[in-house]
Every structure is written in C-alpha cells, then in structure tokens.
C-alpha cells in the first residue's frame, strides 16, 4: 500500500503533522496550483499501514486519515508491485 495526499482536497491545515506518531508528515514549503501548501511525506514507507495493512487485514493506526478534516489522506494499492527499502527505527 502507498500513502497518498489528495492535493485537490487538502487545505494545508497540517493536522496530520501533529498526530502522526512516526513523523511521516512534514510541513510543506511550496504552494501547489490551488495556492495550498500541502504537507510533504518523509519516507512514507515507514507508515505501519503501508506495510502491514494486508497482513492484518484491517486498518491499523489511521490517525491521520481520521483527523484529516478534508478527507484527503488515503492508502492506495501499488500496481505493479514496486520493491523498496524499508527503514525500521528503534
């Protein structure tokens, strides 16, 4: 799974930056076409939902999606499968 922010819905309130326990969301720097500063993703492969959603068969943490007032955060399937390095921090 892949974490995505829908730029057509995000209003740049940065609530996801406050709640993500992994610190994946970072305050953005550049405005997009709509004049909104959308948060940046810092190594989103660390997100527990991206890695383990299929294994557990349910949504795990999901704080960012739940608090996002604009319903802009979602996880989407990766097709075709893209291998990538996973960093686990202790």
């Amino acid at each position, binding site marked *: 799974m892949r974490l995505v922010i829908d730029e*057509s*819905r995000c*209003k*740049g*309130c*940065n*609530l996801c930056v*406050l*709640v993500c326990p992994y610190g994946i969301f970072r305050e953005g720097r550049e405005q997009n076409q709509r004049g*909104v500063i959308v948060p940046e993703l810092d190594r989103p492969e660390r997100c527990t939902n991206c890695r383990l959603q299929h294994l557990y068969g349910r949504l795990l943490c999901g*704080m960012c*999606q*739940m*608090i*996002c*007032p*604009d*319903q*802009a955060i*979602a996880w989407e399937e990766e097709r075709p499968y893209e291998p990538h390095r996973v960093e686990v921090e202790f």
Partner: protein
Amino acid sequence: MSAADWQRIDRLPNIYCAGCGNGSVINCTLAAVEEMGWTRENTVFISGIGCSSRAPGYILTDSLHTTHGRALAFATGVKLANPALNVVVFTGDGDLAAIGGNHFIHACRRNVDMTAICMNNQIYGMTGGQGSPTTPRGAISTTTPYGSAEPVFDLAELAVAAGANHVARWTSYHVKELMAAIATGLQTPGFSLVEVMTQCPTNYGRRNRLRQVSDMIEHLRTHALLVQKRDRLIREGKPIPEGMFVVGELVRRHRPAMGVRA
C-alpha cells in the same frame, strides 16, 4: 462498505475553513456508523443551521437540513413516524444551546432514541464570530469585544440533568476516543449527546491569540480534564483547575426511552 463509501466524493473539497474540526467529526461519525453496520436506506442525518449543520450534505444518505435550532424537533418527528430509522443529529453550539435550547432539554426529557452530535466551537462561526452561550468567560468575539462577561453553558451537564441516557464529551483531537463514544451513543437506546469541542481557528482562534491550528489543538488538549481525574480530585478534596472542561463518558443509564422498537 467502508467509511469512505458514505462520503459524497462529488461535493469534496468541503466548505469548511482550513483546520476546522468539523471534518474530523464527520470522519469519526461515519466510522462509528460503519461499525454499527447500518445501511444507507435506514439511516437519516438531520441538522439545523450553522457550520456544523452542513455535515449531512457531505454524507450519502437521506438527510434533513432544517430551521435554526429545530433539528431535534424534526428528528423527534422522523423517529416517531418511523421507529425503524436510525437517526443521527448534527448540531452546533449556537444551534443546540441558544436557539434550540428548549428543544434540547425536552428531547433529553422525552429520551427519544437518537444520537445528537454537538460540534461545540464556542462561537457562531458561520455568521462572523458572534459570542454564543458557550463562549468562555473573557474570550473575545465580535459581540463581546471586551471579553465575554457571562458564565458558560455546560451542555453535557445540562443533558445529564435533563435525563439523557448517554452523555459524553471529547475534543476533535481525541479522534479514537470520540469514535468509540459515538459508537456507544449509537448503540444506546434513548437520547445520546456527544459533545465535541472543535477548533475554530478562523473566527474563535483569530481573536483569541490562537490563530494557528496547532495552537488551537494544543489549547483543547491541555484544557481537557478526564472525568476520572476530576472525580479523583473531588475525592481528594483538591481544587479543580480553572478553565478546564471535563472529557469522557459522563453518564450511561437505562431510563425508559421513546421511539425504541419493541
């Protein structure tokens, strides 16, 4: 079905300001409704007037957008006309406490089987930031430019006193707890009030030195006092800190309810 299937994708992005907590409350409500296994055919969302009351417009079910303060009166009618329907009411603090105050206490007294979700942003946000009955003492709004001088309405305590079967209060920061509280409210037969303290950075925060969404959230988080801690402080005879509001499940009881399927 998942919670996202209840959203009206064609209406997004929603009308709320950046950082408004109402969207989070919609997410929590839809997740709780989804957990209950209700279908679109037997669920009705009813709202009055205000920022919070635009919520049913973003949900893919039958809904009623009613006159100011009268959402609970319409909801009582819907529930009693067809008790098979599951009724959820979205209201704001101005809608529920000020204009609809009488409907509110009588819905609690009658104990009609419905769930009212009050998004309390402590101000009339949509009309330009007038002071509401829940504006804290000393807070600045367009109608209280020298700070509000009136004591506030504690809606959750009012609902407990008026006889609601389930009363809880959370903030829009505590999303998981809020979802669990709404789910409990949906399961409880009888009237259930879930008061949600939400942030309003545009009209409340801007005038009260909480302009940033993060400041407003931090203010909500630090001023929330868990009900168990409040009870412990009372038991130990210690003073309850000034300016805090109680969060948690305030009451859950089994008074006879109206409009429950036999």
